[in-house]
């Protein structure tokens, strides 16, 4: 087993130049790949660094678009339904509050959090972190904590899963009644596409590098 001496002679680099694979702990000397390229862990194939051209500005633009879509989608009807002359339409908030009685209220709260609140918080955190970086300013206070939280919340933001859920719901009641899509459904469909693109643009290593202020180096 090599000791600390060995590593410094083998790599000959200060610790801040190294990168350890979060999945398998393999140690590398970090080197930015060309823009558009990817640095991949050769042991477990986790993507470690993947810088994209003008990523910061694009992420900010896309995140603002998602923010506007989610907020406006909340107030428009999502799906509407007709049968025997009776009709009803449901917004996203109606879906989130569908579980309202007793222990089901907790489920309603959880649903609202996963389809609206957590995605919104994540977007605000990302804007808070990236805006100063993109415009070459000093990062805002607590930006690093904000970015870590935005990454930890990622699996719990389920807006896109909700959108697919609508399609399934449609199939399930197709023989019960007629269903139509409201404007919010189309907003959410656009949102799903943007969310997928956005996550693809964000290179966390590049962001962490930008947030590393000189006083923390070395």
């Amino acid at each position, binding site marked *: 087993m090599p000791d*600390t001496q060995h590593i410094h002679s083998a*790599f000959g680099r200060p610790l801040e130049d190294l990168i350890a694979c979060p999945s398998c702990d393999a140690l590398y000397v970090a080197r930015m*790949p060309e823009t558009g390229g990817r640095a991949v862990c050769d042991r477990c194939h986790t993507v470690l660094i993947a810088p994209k051209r003008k990523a910061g500005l694009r992420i900010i633009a896309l995140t603002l678009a998602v923010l506007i879509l989610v907020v406006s989608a909340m107030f428009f009807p999502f799906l509407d339904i007709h049968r025997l002359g009776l009709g009803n339409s449901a917004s996203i908030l109606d879906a989130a509050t*569908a579980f309202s009685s007793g222990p089901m209220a907790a489920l309603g709260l959880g649903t609202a959090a*996963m389809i609206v609140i957590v995605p919104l918080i994540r977007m605000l955190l990302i804007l808070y972190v990236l805006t100063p970086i993109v415009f070459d300013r000093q990062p805002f206070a607590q930006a690093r904590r904000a970015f870590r939280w935005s990454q930890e919340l990622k699996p719990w933001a389920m807006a896109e899963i909700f959108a697919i859920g609508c399609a399934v719901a449609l199939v399930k*009641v197709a023989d019960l009644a007629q269903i139509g899509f409201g404007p919010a459904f189309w907003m959410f469909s656009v949102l799903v596409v943007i969310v997928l693109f956005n996550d693809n643009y964000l290179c966390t290593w590049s962001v962490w590098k930008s947030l590393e202020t000189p006083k923390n180096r070395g």
Partner: protein
Amino acid sequence: MEIPGNSEEPRLTAREAGLVACRACARVWTPDHDRCERCGARLQSRDTGSLQRVWAWWVAGLTCYIPANLYPMLVTDTLMQETSSTIVGGAVEIASHGAYGIAAIILIASVLIPIGKFLAIAFLAISARRGSHVAPQKRQHLYEVVEFIGRWSMIDVFVVAILSALVQLSSVASIQPGPAALTFALSVVFTMLSAQSFDSRLIWDTARRNRRDRTT
């Protein structure tokens, strides 16, 4: 990526280099740090409590999954009748109408995938301690699949939420959520937490330890 050393040799890990890596931001530190100075995440060379937490959430998830299958997910009121359907019951009913494809999708999403997830996490946790003949690359891949698929199981709960909000046509037809919606949601959340608790670096440690045992 610069790859120091001979690529034939097993890759040096941060732990073997006497360093501790941050899993949140990939920065490495000397072992005297207990929090990452860059992102503030807690540092642990190997998360020793990891497997206990994996099993605790796993048991909680399985406990919630059983009632999720016994109680109704949806209660449908139409002019003629009130029907409540469990996950499997709903799929059987759809199949009896001839829609075998949709019935199969429901069975795969709500039965096969959750059970597969429980088995996969159990296998990963056991093999992380005991070692396994399955190559670490394959186990890492399995772990990534479990993490990816985990959140998609929530789709069932969202469908129930959408239907209960939408299908409220007074006496003609209305749909209410059943108790299984709650336990199924809890089961999905607990299974996600179980998978997140797993420290995937353990997969690679046992693989390397086994290889060393064999060569010496």
